[in-house]
C-alpha cells in the first residue's frame, strides 16, 4: 500500500508477492499433477522393460499394421481437407451467398457433436442395411467396417481445423494486391496461386498439422465405423484400447508412446510456425 500516495501515472501497486507466487504455484501444481504426472507415468511404463521390449511390442504384425493404417488414413484425410478446407475458407470469406452464415456456424459442428455420435450418424447413413449404404453395397462399395468409413469419419472430425486456421488470415489479407493482379490481367487462378496462396500457406500448413495430429488420435467415431479388424481396419488408438482391455499394459504403453511422440512433434511444429509468423510480422512492421 505504500505506493498508494504516488501519482496516477506511476506504476500501480504490484500484486502482493505471496499472491503472485500463490497463483504461479497453483498453475504449476495443477498442470503438473493433471498433465505432467500422467505423461511421466506412461513414458516410464513404456520404457520400463528397456528399448528391446519396446521395439518387440511395436513390431508385432498387428501393432505395425495398426500404426501404418493410422498414418495412411491421417495423410489421406489431411490432404483432402487441406484442399477442401482452404476452398471452404476462401468461399466463406470472399463470396456472399445465401446460407453463408449457416455454413459458417455449421462448420463448428464437429467441435460440439460427440465423436461417438458422429460415428453412429455415419453408421446410420452408410451402414449396410441402411438406405444409402445398401445402395452403395449393391454397387460393390463398402463404407462401414472398411477403410472408406474411417476416411469419412476423420474427414468430418477434422473439417474445421484448416478452415479455422485459414479464415482469419484471409480476412486480414490485403485485397488490393489481389485486385491489382486481377486488373493487370492475371486470371483468377493465377491470382490465387501467385498472390493469395503464398499469404495463407503458413496457415494451411499449421492447420494441416493440427488436422493430422487430431486424425492420429481419433477414437470415438472410428471405433463405431471401422469394424476394428486386426491387420485391416484396426487403428492405433483402437489397438491401444484393445491392449488395455486384455491387460497387456506394456504393448499399450509402447504404442501410446509412439502416438504421443508423433503428436508432440506436430504440436511443436505448429508452435514453431506460429512463433515464426509472429516474428515475421514484427520484422515487416515499419514502426
Amino acid at each position, binding site marked *: 500500500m505504500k505506493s*498508494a500516495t504516488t501519482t*496516477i501515472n506511476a506504476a*500501480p*501497486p504490484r500484486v*502482493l508477492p505471496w499472491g503472485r507466487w500463490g*497463483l*504461479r504455484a497453483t*498453475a*504449476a501444481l495443477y498442470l503438473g499433477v*493433471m*498433465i*505432467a504426472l*500422467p*505423461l511421466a*507415468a506412461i513414458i516410464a*511404463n513404456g520404457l520400463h522393460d528397456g528399448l528391446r521390449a519396446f521395439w518387440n511390442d511395436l513390431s508385432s504384425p498387428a501393432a505395425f499394421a495398426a500404426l501404418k493404417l493410422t498414418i495412411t488414413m491421417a495423410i489421406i484425410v489431411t490432404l483432402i481437407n487441406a484442399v*477442401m478446407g482452404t*476452398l*471452404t475458407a476462401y*468461399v*466463406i470469406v470472399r463470396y456472399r451467398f445465401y446460407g453463408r452464415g449457416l*455454413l459458417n456456424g*455449421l*462448420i463448428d*459442428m*464437429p467441435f460440439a*457433436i*460427440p*465423436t*461417438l*455420435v458422429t460415428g*453412429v*450418424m455415419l453408421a*446410420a447413413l452408410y451402414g449396410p442395411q441402411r438406405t444409402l449404404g445398401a445402395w452403395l453395397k449393391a454397387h460393390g462399395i463398402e463404407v462401414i467396417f472398411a477403410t472408406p468409413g474411417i476416411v*469419412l469419419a476423420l*474427414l468430418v472430425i477434422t473439417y474445421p481445423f484448416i478452415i479455422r486456421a485459414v479464415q482469419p488470415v484471409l*480476412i*486480414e489479407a490485403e485485397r488490393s494486391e489481389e485486385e491489382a493482379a*486481377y*486488373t493487370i490481367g492475371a486470371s*483468377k487462378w493465377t491470382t490465387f496461386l501467385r498472390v493469395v496462396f503464398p499469404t495463407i500457406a503458413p496457415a494451411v500448413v499449421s492447420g494441416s498439422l493440427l488436422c493430422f495430429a*487430431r486424425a492420429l*488420435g*481419433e*477414437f*470415438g467415431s472410428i471405433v463405431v465405423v471401422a469394424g476394428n479388424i486386426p491387420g485391416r481396419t484396426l487403428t*492405433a*488408438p483402437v489397438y*491401444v*484400447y484393445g491392449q*488395455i*482391455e486384455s491387460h497387456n*499394459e506394456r504393448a*499399450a504403453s509402447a504404442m*501410446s508412446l509412439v502416438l504421443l511422440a508423433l*503428436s*508432440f512433434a*506436430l*504440436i511443436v511444429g505448429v*508452435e514453431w510456425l506460429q512463433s515464426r509468423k509472429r516474428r515475421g510480422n514484427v520484422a515487416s512492421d515499419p514502426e
Partner: protein
Amino acid sequence: MSQAILNEPVATSRTPSRKRAVGARLVEWALIAIVLLYAAGLLVAPLVAIVYGALVEGGGAFVRQITSADALSALKLTLIMAVGATLINTLFGLCIAWVLARDDFWGKRVLNGLVDMPFAVSPVIAGFMLILLFGRNGWLTALTDALGIKVVFALPGILIATIFISIPFVIREVVPVLSQANRDQENAARTMGASPWQTFRHVTLPAIRWGLLYGVSLTFARAVGEIGAVLVVSGGVSRLTETATLFIFRSLDDRNTVGANAMAVVLAVVSFMILMVIEFFKRRAEKNYSANVTASTLE
C-alpha cells in the same frame, strides 16, 4: 474492422471484359456449390440420416429407450460430470491463463506447452495414463487407498478423465483476451485502492467475460461428448458408472441399435444447442476483441 472487410462488395474488379466477368461468376458459383455440397454431405446428411432412422423405427421405441432407467441415469451422470469438470477447469483455467498472460518467470514456456498436451494426446491414451497412475500398482494407488478413495472404475476416475481432456479450452480462449485487455482501467482501480481481488472481480472479469464464456461453453461441449478416456477409466460396463456416451457404446456392443441411435439423437440435439450458445459467445468475443484492438491501435 474485420467486419468492414467482410461487408465490402465482392465484385469490385473493374470488369476488364464482360465475357471475363461472366466466367468469373461461373467459377464463383461452381466453387460455392462444391463447398456447400461437401459440407452438406459431410455434416448434414449423417444428421438427417440418424433423425430419420430414429423416427422410422417408431417414435414409441425411441421414447421408451430414452426414458428407460439406464438412459436417464446415464444422462444425469453426464450432466454432473460435465458441470463438475467445467467448473474446476474454469476456476483453474482462469488462474493459469492469468499466469500465462500476465506473469513472467522461469519455466513459463514449459507450462504453456503442457497446456496443449491434452489436444495432442489421444483420449484413449489419456484414460490409460489414469490407469497407470491409479490402477493396480499405480504410482498414486497407495495414496488413494490410504484415503479410501477408489478412482479407476469409479466416478472420480471419470471426473478426472473428463477434466484432463477439457483443460485447454478456457485457457486458450482467455489468454489472448487477457493479454490485450486494457490495463489502464485495472491500474486506475488499483491506484484508487481496490484490492487485487476487487480489481479482478469488477474490472478484469467484465472485460474478458465473452472470451471466458466462449471457452467455458467449449469445455462443456467437450466434456459432454468424451468417450475414449472415460471408456478406459470406467472399465466398460458397470451401469453405475455409465455416462451418455458409454450408454451408446454399450448399446452398440449389445446390438441395441435403437437405443444407441436414440441416445445419439438426444446428444446430437444437446450438442446443437450448445453449439448455438458457443456461436453466440464466439461472436460476442470476436466483436469485443476487434473493438479492443481497434481502440488500442487508435491510441
